[in-house]
Structures are given as C-alpha cells and as structure tokens.
C-alpha cells in the first residue's frame, strides 16, 4: 500500500529546540487510590526515535502518555517534553506546549458534533488561519491518511479504522515535533492495522517525528523495527537484516508499575528474562 506525501518540513529543525530528548521521565510515580500505577519510572525518548510501550492492561501505558502531555499530574518525579518541564507548568502554559505535540487517543476521541473537516482543522481554526489555507491543509492531511473523501462526513459515519486515521490526520496537521499514539491499531483488522503502521513509519522516517506508541500488538512494533519508509516508491519496505539496527525504534515494557525492559529489538530478542520471553513468544 502506498500513501500520498504530506509536505512537512523537519519539525525539530523548524522549532530550533536544542534539547536532545523529546521526552524524559525522571523517577515518575503515580497511584490511583490504593493502586500504584507507576513506581519510580525513568526513561528517555531521543529526538527522532519511536518508542513502543508494552505491558498488560492496567500497567500504566495510557497513563504514561497522558502524563507526558500534562493531562495528568504525577504524584512524584519530573517529566520533560521537548525540553520543558511539564510537571512544573500551569495548565495555561501547557496549552502552548501541547500545540507542538500530536496525540492519537485509543478510541480516536474525535469531536462527534463536528465534521471530519472541522475535526482535522480544529487547531488551525483556533489559530484563525484563512479558510483557503485551512481547506488546503485539511485536504493534504486527509490525503496523507487516504481519507479525503470523508471530509464532509461526521465521525459516527466512519468505521473504527477510518476514525483512527482521521485522528492521525488531526494529530499531524500542525507538523508536531512529537507524536503520542495510544493503541493506534487496537481492535482493527490486519489490513487497516498495516495501513496505520505504515503511516506511523512514514511519519518517523520521512518527517523524523519523535513518537511514543502504546500498543498491545507486538507484531506491529516488530514491523516498525524491521521496515523503513521508502520515499521513492512511497511505501514501507522491509530492511535487510544487517541494517535493522539503524532504525530509530526502541521498546519499553512496563510491569507492576516498573520498567522491566528498555532497549532495541536486538536486546529484546536476546533477553533472558522469563517474563519478557513469555511476553514476546
């Protein structure tokens, strides 16, 4: 499958932010009532890299994404996003920072009273761009996810996979420096999942966007680690075995509120931890 191109410049270069890491978690803890969800979690996401977050249901993966964006406050520790300390910022300050980041929610979270066009253009309308500019960019973003024909439809008229792709279009339309995906392929058929994986890989390889991706589907992350986006053929192609370590892709596994693995695919494949072996088998 091939996806049309979206004329996006390298966002990191655009913003000129000197921070080497897109996301940093420093000893972060959070509990809901009696249940500890994250317990002293520390990791970093280098610029341009995609990190896949794994863990059983309730292990704090989605919470990690919400903490990253400051949608939740941790009980302890510090979180940095694009060089700014999210944990010490007010909600008003966070609104500015969030405009530099895109997020795709687990259930898409499209505004159901707005049409696809207004959903995708939400940020642009907030910036009061001209109608022509908004229309052009919305069509480009929808063409990127191959859903230009849905522009005048409501989210309720779309399938689950289409909604997820519209959510991706909404997340990338402002050329964000970082993207957060919450189970982008969850509950979708293999063909649609592959389309979404390809879009994520394209975003990673062509636009060098840093990304945190929560997923239950190990095969999606392995596909991302073993493929790259080929600009010439405009599709995702498998890499020869020797070149796989060059892919900016890493894995992080959460268990009982702690990180039990943080590394690349080779390290994951050779891990001797019985839990990890069982998880990836």
């Amino acid at each position, binding site marked *: 499958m091939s996806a049309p191109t979206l004329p996006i410049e390298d966002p990191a270069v655009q913003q000129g932010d000197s921070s080497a890491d897109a996301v940093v978690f420093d000893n972060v803890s959070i509990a809901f009532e009696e249940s500890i969800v994250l317990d002293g979690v520390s990791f970093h996401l280098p610029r341009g890299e995609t990190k896949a977050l794994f863990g059983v249901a309730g292990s704090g993966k989605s919470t990690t994404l919400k903490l990253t964006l400051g949608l939740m406050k941790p009980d302890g520790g510090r979180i940095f996003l694009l060089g700014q300390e999210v944990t010490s910022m007010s909600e008003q300050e966070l609104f500015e920072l969030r405009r530099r980041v895109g997020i795709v*929610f687990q259930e898409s*979270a499209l505004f*159901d009273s707005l049409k696809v066009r207004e959903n995708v253009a939400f940020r642009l309308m907030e910036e009061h761009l001209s109608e022509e500019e908004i229309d052009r960019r919305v069509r480009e973003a929808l063409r990127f996810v191959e859903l230009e024909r849905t522009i005048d439809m409501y989210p309720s008229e779309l399938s689950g996979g289409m909604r997820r792709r519209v959510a991706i279009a909404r997340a990338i339309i402002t050329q964000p420096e970082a993207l957060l995906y919450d189970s982008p392929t969850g509950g979708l058929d293999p063909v649609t999942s592959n389309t979404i994986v390809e879009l994520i890989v394209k975003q990673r390889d062509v636009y060098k966007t840093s990304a945190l991706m929560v997923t239950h589907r190990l095969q999606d992350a392995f596909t991302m680690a073993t493929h790259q986006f080929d600009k010439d053929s405009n599709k995702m192609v498998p890499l020869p075995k020797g070149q796989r370590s060059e892919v900016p892709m890493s894995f992080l596994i959460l268990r009982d509120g702690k990180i039990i693995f943080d590394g690349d695919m080779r390290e994951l494949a050779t891990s001797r931890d019985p839990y990890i072996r069982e998880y990836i088998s």
Partner: protein
Amino acid sequence: MAMELELTSPFDVAKDAVLAIQEYARLAGQSVGNFFRRPVYWGDILQQADLIGVGSLPIVVLSGLSIGALLALNSASTLERFGGITLIGQLVSSSMVTELGPLITGLMVSGRNASGMASELGSMIVTEQIDAMRALGTDPSKKLVTPRVAATVFMLFFLTIISDLLGLAGGFAVANLLFGLDSRQYWSNAWQTLVFRDVFMGLVKPVLFGFIIATIGCYYGMSTRGGTQGVGRSTTQAVVTSSVLILVVDFFVTKAIFAMLGYR
C-alpha cells in the same frame, strides 16, 4: 446485577462535599474570568444562545401562558368573593414579574438545559473528547463552559421578560373571557401596580438563575466519571441541584432586595 453497598465514613463524605464546592467555585470563577482572557469564543456564545434561548422558547411560551392563566383562574374566585375581581390584573402582574416569571422560566430552562449541558459535556468526558481538546491546546473552560454560561445568563434574562408578558396575556385571557373583565381595566391595573422594586427583582433573578443553571450543568458534566451510567447520574444531579439552588437563591434574593430597598 447484584451491587455491594459500602459504608462511607462521615469524614470522607464531608471531605468530598468540600472538594465538590471548591471545584464548583473554581469552575464558576473561571467561567467569568475567561471573559477577560483571550480568546473569547463569540461564535460559540452565539451558537449556544441560539440553542439555549431560541430552543427554550416553546416551553417558556407555554409555561408563561399557563401560569398566568392559572394564577388568574385560582385567584379570581377569592377576589370575586370580596368583590375585588378588578384587582386580578394587579395580582397577576406583581406575581408574574417578581416571582413566578423568573422562577418558572428558571426551572423550565434548568430542566431543559442544565441536563443538556451535563449530558453533552459528560459524554465528551467519557469519550476523551475533553482530553483531546486539552491536548490540542484549547482550554475547555473557555471553549465550552464560558459560552454556555454567557448564553444562558443573557438568554434567560429575555426569556423571563417574554414569560412575564405572556403570563400577563394568559391572565388577561382568563379575566376577560371567563370573568368579563374589561381590557383597559386589566392592563392599567397590571401596569400601575408595578414599582421599581418589582421590576428590579424580576430582572436580577434571571441573571442569577441563568448563572446557576449553566455553571451547575457544566460542573456536573465536567466532573462525570464512570461511563454512560455516570453521564445519566450527572444529568439527573444537574437538574436536581440547579432546581433546588434556584429555589433557595430565590428566597434569599427576594429577602435581600426587600431589605435593600427598605421593605420588610
């Protein structure tokens, strides 16, 4: 489905109540403060004014007419006994303008719109649309709460005036058609009985009631937890709380204005 009942300590209940009041006060304060911070969503205010104001017009028209007519009908028999049937306009006018117009309109709009706001915002909470809005860099308090508060306050003011007028018209219809009261007698009596205090009270109340309806509706919507069941719970709580608050505030406002303007 069997449910286990848990005993909650009075300390926890009190703590939750204080927290809820604090959160409500914060939301209500922000809804006003947002008017002084850019951006102000005028388009959303207009849209809400249409939904809340124009949408509520039929129930306000019907309830205003009915209340005025019923008031005239019920009071006429008593007034007739004392030979004071001509005072019917006076009674309907002062009751509608100072009390029943604002109160009935407030309760009607509360039933229609506090529930609508709570269910709409509640659904947005449980489907992560509010989180999505925050993630997109937009303040839901500015985009969703302030327009609803502004539109409700503004529109309830005019809806109450419409209700007052229709209440008087309903009263006149009963007085004229059933009791043969002359038109000029009714309207001049109704007009002359009104003093500044009555009109002032009748116009202050809808502003306060509008604020209560919108802030309570938005508060319960924004604090929804627990899926679709939670949305249902929020909707019910919003209507009950805003209606009770309207009645309580009505009493104190009436008392305060009487005290302020040197009456009783």
